[in-house]
């Protein structure tokens, strides 16, 4: 999405507020469809998004299933929502619970998509310029931008760790939750250890490249706020206000 960082941040705000306001799956679906239409309209190539969503698909499914069986009756307000679809011992899924599960699923997909769309083309300069424009400290923008730059490296390490564990027999796709937990630990421990080493190296690399020599940095480009950005930001802010009014003022979009 080629737009000014401020306009992209307005989009992030609008989607975040909307998905958190509404807990009805149809309203969340509406937000998600609107988001994808916007991405298509702005000719944002969706290649790469699937790669972000695929690894967390099992977690999303788990969250949805958990919400379906664990949503308390007290937050479901009508009898249709309380209708039991399935019961097995103490576990039971109501219509409202399943709808809540779908809502969680749609929320996660929407949040991952909008975060990906905002960050995929974020450049160090944009963050620095915006931070300077908003008078934020330079260390904050460096922290954000170096974290963004480290994401591909960490993703690559994660993939290498998964393959290393698979190569010695770890059943990555196992469904048994206890064995699944064991596999997750076998990935998370090396990933955390490796991330700490990356953080240490990155801190040395920042110093070795003169970070902190002065309070600021040379600006390599200037923020460009063109009419297209104004329009996008205006639509996003209007949507944010609308979501708040619809949910809090008119009580719409709730289960």
């Amino acid at each position, binding site marked *: 999405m080629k737009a000014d960082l401020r306009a992209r941040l307005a989009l992030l705000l609008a989607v975040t507020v909307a998905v958190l306001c509404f807990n009805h799956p149809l309203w969340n679906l509406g937000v998600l469809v609107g988001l994808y239409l916007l991405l298509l309209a702005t000719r944002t190539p969706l290649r790469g998004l699937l790669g972000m969503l695929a690894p967390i698909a099992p977690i999303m499914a788990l969250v949805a299933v958990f919400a379906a069986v664990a949503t308390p009756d007290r937050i479901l307000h009508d009898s249709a929502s309380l209708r039991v679809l399935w019961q097995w011992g103490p576990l039971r899924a109501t219509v409202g619970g399943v709808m809540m599960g779908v809502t969680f699923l749609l929320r996660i997909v929407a949040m991952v998509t909008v975060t990906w769309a905002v960050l995929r083309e974020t450049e160090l300069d944009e963050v620095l310029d915006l931070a300077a424009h908003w008078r934020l400290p330079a260390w904050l923008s460096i922290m954000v931008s170096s974290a963004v730059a480290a994401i591909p490296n960490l993703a690559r390490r994660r993939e290498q760790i998964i393959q290393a564990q698979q190569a010695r027999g*770890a059943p990555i796709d196992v469904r048994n939750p206890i064995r699944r937990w064991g596999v997750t630990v076998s990935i998370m421990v*090396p990933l955390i250890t490796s991330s700490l080493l990356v953080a240490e190296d990155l801190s040395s690399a920042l*110093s*070795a*490249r003169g970070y902190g*020599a002065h309070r600021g*940095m040379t600006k390599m480009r200037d923020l460009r706020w063109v009419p297209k950005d104004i329009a996008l930001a205006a639509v996003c802010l209007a949507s944010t206000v609308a979501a708040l009014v619809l949910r809090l003022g008119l009580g719409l979009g709730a289960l």
Partner: protein
Amino acid sequence: MGRSADLTLEGVGYRYPRGERDALREISTVFPGGGCSAVMGADGAGKSSLLKALTGIVPMLSGGQLRGRVRYGQADLAQHRVSTITEYIGLVLQDPASQVIGRTVAEDVTFGPRNHLVPREEAERRGAEALERVGLAGFEARATAELSGGELQRLAIAGVLALAPDVLCLDEATAELDPAGADQLWTVLDELRNSGMGIVLAEGDPHGLLPRAEHLVVLDQGALAWQGSPTEFFAHPEQAAALGVRPAPMPQLAASLLAASPGLRRPGRLPVSLQETADWLRETLGGRRPPSPATDRVALPSVPAAIELEGLRFSYAGGPEVLHGIDLTIGAGEFVALLGANGSGKTTLVKHLNGLLRPNAGRVRLLGRDTANSQIWQLAQLVGFVFQDPGHQLFCGTVADEVGYGLRMAGRASDEIRRRVAEVLEFTGLSDVAGQNPLTLPRSRQQLVAMASTLVSRPQVLVIDEPTTGQDWNGVQSLMSLVERLNAEGATIVMISHDQELVAQYAHRAITLSAGRVIADGPAATQVTTEVTRLWAELFGAAMPPPRDANEAGQLLAAAIREPR
């Protein structure tokens, strides 16, 4: 650019805040200005800490107290901030991927000048010039996430060069590069040095250092074990090996020849360069020619085949094809090396052996079984993988638990797990650390733990990815002697390596890949270029089959000397 000043260490000692022992112990030495110096030593000797002390990162960033003094010219580094020091003394760390700061190459390379408030146009010019110097001109708009390991290494160097430092310190800069990439880097360093820049290198391989470095510092457990001319140091191969430094091949060859020829007059100093050795041997041999090396190690594909690839094609999702119809047969019990430049498809190819990747077209058969019909965990019982970085595997509280992980995942009985873990710990020499946390061990022993955790499943095929990366020479020797024993017991070995000497020494056969195609396949000694093969070609012509390593060369030359003139 003028000649850089001397870097002087006066009784430098240092301990990391939670360290159990000193990382540096009272080191005094001078890295001459405008020259090329090297720091060598075994795993944990203190090489990286020393380079960080030269740039103030130790102790200013790492914490703790530095004893003694580090001076650049007359300036005491303790009186300056790291960001000021690094304007004069640049440091490139070991892992290039973790030094990436920018999302694009242009962003990354201009980061240094921008921190020093260099004007926009000047920062762009410096960035472009630095990229040009390392062979990355035109890469400005490329995303750093899309760069190969070799390209990232060059970008890390360019990022520091853009600061225009007087001295450049590099920590294992050639470790991840293929031979062509390493040669290119050495050319860059030669140019920088000719322009007056001082170079300080921490390196594990003497190959590139010997013709360049004037001053060598060898560390042993943080202390200065030796300093002086690299030629003097490497003329004593036994001394190098004792300090965990990889010996240079030519003095090894001379020592092997002298040991096998008691009557031969020992030169004042063992020859170190190829030319010195060739001159000495011409005089010593007096026209005699050595016999051809034994060919019993050259095993071509036999029956039964351990690995069969038929028309293997593969491309990553949405990307171009990276393997273009590979046909290959590897016999059971062979020791095969996979060679090729960074990005030629070696790792992609071996990941098909245990199903980590599945072919887009073609077939992979392992021990007669089509891998398409097997899950990864099933194939893991047949194919063991030893990856470059053991840190990607280790997570258990003890070495014994770590080694038994694969068996637990396969659902084996606890008695069997205990017995097999004990066996493999004994085989790998890790019994003494069975109860220790693997992450507290030195890197070379972590690699052995990773290998043990693979061997416990008794795989019939073992794949080893770059056994020398991040390992000291003693670690490589321990690992390779285990691999050799496994091969002697019948295991099929597939080793990916850029280390031509290692390939010549251990592999029977070498297969070279280029851009996803097999371009050469034959006996290892004829597929690689090492100092020994170059010496052989110079002395006896290209038609003479070369020996596999310096020791064998010494034995063959001794046999020639025993012949009457």
